[in-house]
């Protein structure tokens, strides 16, 4: 039971949902910021929206998600620096709120 709670907690921490506040959604400018920020990490990094998942290192994949104002997405990273990577990418997306 304790094990379950811990796992659940960990998952809650890692899977932070971000609501897209930017009027223009996740278009070329914010997408390029994300791709460039990914270069400093070695983890695999993805953006997840519903059933779709995009490699955050690919501008084309990010734009193909068609993320628009009001969408809810999750940053998912896998690797040694996953936690830092998720925080950094999430903060870029939130910082682009007025773009």
């Amino acid at each position, binding site marked *: 039971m304790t094990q379950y709670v811990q796992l659940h907690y960990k998952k809650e921490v890692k899977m932070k949902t971000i609501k897209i506040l930017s*009027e*223009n959604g996740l*278009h070329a400018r914010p997408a390029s910021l994300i791709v460039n920020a990914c270069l400093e990490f070695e983890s695999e990094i993805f953006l997840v929206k519903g059933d779709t998942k995009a490699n955050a290192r690919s501008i084309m994949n990010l734009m193909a998600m068609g993320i628009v104002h009001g969408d809810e997405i999750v940053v998912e990273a896998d690797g040694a620096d996953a936690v830092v990577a998720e925080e950094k990418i999430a903060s870029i997306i939130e910082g682009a709120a007025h773009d």
Partner: protein
Amino acid sequence: MFKKLFKNKAVQMNTPIVGKVIQLEEVPDQVFSGKMVGDGFAIVPTEGKVYAPIEGEVIQIFPTKHALGIKSTEGIEVLIHFGIDTVELKGEGFTSYIAAGDHVKIGDLLLEVDLEILEARGKSAITPIIFTDKKQYKSFDVSYKDVLKNDSVCSITL
């Protein structure tokens, strides 16, 4: 002789838009001129029509229809971003004839854009054409000139 036989494969790309081909560095948006999205070139359109420059599959068209991506049969991803800051028009003035997953042939009409609406809204129609993944090609050679429909504009070495 063997050098010639084994030279790298080159893919010819037609212009997607009728207009004037310019250097990417001349685009009045740092995201593109600074090559943050990738390398390529740009076109100053004289017509509001976008044709498939290369045969391949439509990867995406952004919900606002101002940007679309094609993956060529050879595996090169090309982003066509019509105008600067045109995401803010939210689709106004843009008519799309394609959807993600469509197979397109060179010259297929992909998008129509009302250039008068862009002008009235104060948006530049300068259109960056970007190769978004540099791992997919070795080099490319652009013809910087005025181009008409079906004119070759770029040779990409794989």
